[in-house]
């Protein structure tokens, strides 16, 4: 057994025991956002694409799942599946449009498209407008597992998270993932090696959107509501922050970041009111200026500096395209 495997088993054991020690709803919320952030990191950390509109997938899936289960009285598994499908379809459209431009334009396009989804959700009849969808019943998964039981839903959420995380983990370590990293490091070179860069980017985008959707759908299932907050750009910003804090391009970073941010928000929300936004902003600023590798990235870098101790596979560090030397196009403006 490798160290990585032992690490994962310990983490899983902790996760399974957690509801006996910590408030389970908080852990579930952390898990949803951790999955969301991991999905986002697949795009930013491993493909080098900064999407500023991931809340659209998260929120759209949340709405679709909520609608399917409330108004159409469908079962939770169908609701989840529909939510993920909706996010995947939306991801296909967004991705297809956004990969036509690069860098900051990509970020601006995804942000604008997500804002369009936000306005759509604000006006569309099925979302409940300002109120959102409230009182989504949890129902019974596959007609067997009664999700109204807090313990049952907890383990279902853990299972969903582990499944989603495994997909991401496998993707990162697959040949497909290697191509994505090549695109991140040097897109023209990947192109010249004969890879259809746009197809890879689109696939990564759809995969990331679907998993973000899975996170959103699961969130609806467990909290019982979907609101405009889920599709708002602030949520897109939050997932960026989680990934950045934990470590862009590290496997575990987004999880650490999600734990940090969700717990922090949970602790602060009642005490400091609007200052939460200020604190989030300050974390952004400090992170970008002084701490670009994030928590996990920083730890990994420290470990690697020490004499060789056979660390199996150090997580990839170079955040975004930090290392890429793209020849600067002169006169991008004016």
């Amino acid at each position: 057994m490798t160290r990585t495997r032992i690490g994962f088993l310990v983490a899983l054991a902790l996760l399974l025991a957690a509801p006996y020690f910590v408030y389970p709803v908080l852990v579930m919320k952390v898990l949803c956002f951790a999955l969301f952030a991991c999905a986002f990191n697949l795009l930013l950390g491993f493909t080098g694409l900064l999407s500023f509109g991931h809340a659209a997938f998260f929120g759209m899936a949340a709405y679709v799942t909520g609608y399917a289960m409330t108004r159409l009285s469908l079962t939770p598994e169908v609701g989840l599946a529909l939510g993920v499908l909706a996010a995947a379809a939306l991801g296909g459209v967004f991705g297809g449009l956004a990969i036509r431009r690069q860098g900051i334009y990509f970020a601006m396009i995804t942000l604008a498209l997500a804002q369009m989804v936000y306005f759509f959700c604000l006006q569309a009849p099925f979302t409940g407008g300002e109120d959102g969808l409230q009182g989504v019943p949890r129902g019974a998964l596959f007609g067997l597992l009664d999700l109204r039981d807090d313990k049952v839903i907890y383990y279902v959420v853990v299972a969903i998270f582990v499944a989603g995380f495994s997909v991401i983990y496998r993707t990162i370590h697959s040949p497909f993932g290697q191509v994505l990293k090549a695109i991140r490091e040097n897109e023209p070179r990947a192109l010249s090696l004969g890879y259809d860069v746009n197809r890879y980017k689109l696939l990564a985008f759809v995969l990331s959107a679907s998993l973000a959707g899975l996170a959103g759908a699961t969130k609806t299932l467990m909290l019982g509501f979907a609101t405009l907050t889920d599709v708002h750009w602030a949520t897109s910003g939050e997932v960026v922050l989680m990934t950045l804090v934990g470590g862009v391009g590290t496997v575990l970073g987004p999880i650490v970041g999600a734990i940090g941010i969700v717990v922090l928000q949970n602790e602060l929300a009642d005490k400091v009111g609007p200052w939460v936004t200020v604190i989030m902003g300050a974390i952004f600023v400090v992170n970008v200026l002084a701490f670009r590798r994030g928590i996990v990235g920083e730890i990994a870098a420290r470990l690697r500096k020490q004499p060789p101790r056979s660390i199996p596979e150090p997580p990839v560090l170079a955040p975004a395209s930090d290392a890429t030397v793209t020849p600067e196009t002169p006169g991008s403006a004016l």
Partner: protein
Amino acid sequence: MTEILGIPIQALLGQLLLGLVNGSFYAMLSLGLAIIFGLLNIINFAHGALYMMGAYAAWLSLTYFNVGYWPSLILAPVVIGAFGMLIERGFLQWLYKLDHLYGLLLTFGIALMLEGTFRYFFGVSGQPYPVPEQLSGATNLGFMILPNYRAWVVAASLTVCVATWFVIERTRLGAYLRAATENPKLVQAFGINVPLMVTLTYGFGAALAAFSGVLAAPIIQVNPLMGSNLIVIVFAVVVIGGMGSILGSIATGLGLGVIEGLTKVFYPEASSTVIFVIMVIVLLVRPAGLFGREK
């Protein structure tokens, strides 16, 4: 002659003017974004927050110091411009060697901090700001009633935009700026203080945003979220126009404002999304943007 396609001409012209007003804000803000991006290679997410601060600077000076609209129109941009320079010196200058995305993330953080601070002090409800006396009322042009203040907003922002264009394209200072945009190292080697120019450019962009904020104060309620609501639309405007040319930015901003205004008349449900739809079409047809150069 009082109706076009079943819409009273009065309402049509009214929305057209409103569209022009919004378009002037899009134009001024996207112009600021383009100038800053040109020299700093940073997309300034804090632009909306600076615009909001401009409006608050006007409102605060009126409420607490009894400083009226006209002095504010000069003072607010100066103060916010100076504040912008502090941001550039304090934060942004450390990012120039990094990927552009870090600039976006950092300014996003700054925007959150500014917005949160204003929300703490002023809540989310809007503060009314009176239209200055000289511009209150409306003029009857025969075919329509023209609210004076709105006409002033369009005229003032067009003047500022054209003046900016003139300075950048037709003066020596502008030539330095354009040269530094093309090749900062070479320009520095000629003995021009490029870092100072960068600071001043960011300050100017911030001042432009603040100026728009003051202009907007009497039209919309001054509130902490006014900037972030606008900035996303301005981003779409920038994607549509591309950041390649100054006149292009101005024309795109105004044009989109007018289209948005007309949509409000003919198909109000789509008025909040029409600009994004246009962005999608432009991306499909001309990915580099209307005035952009593909890299």
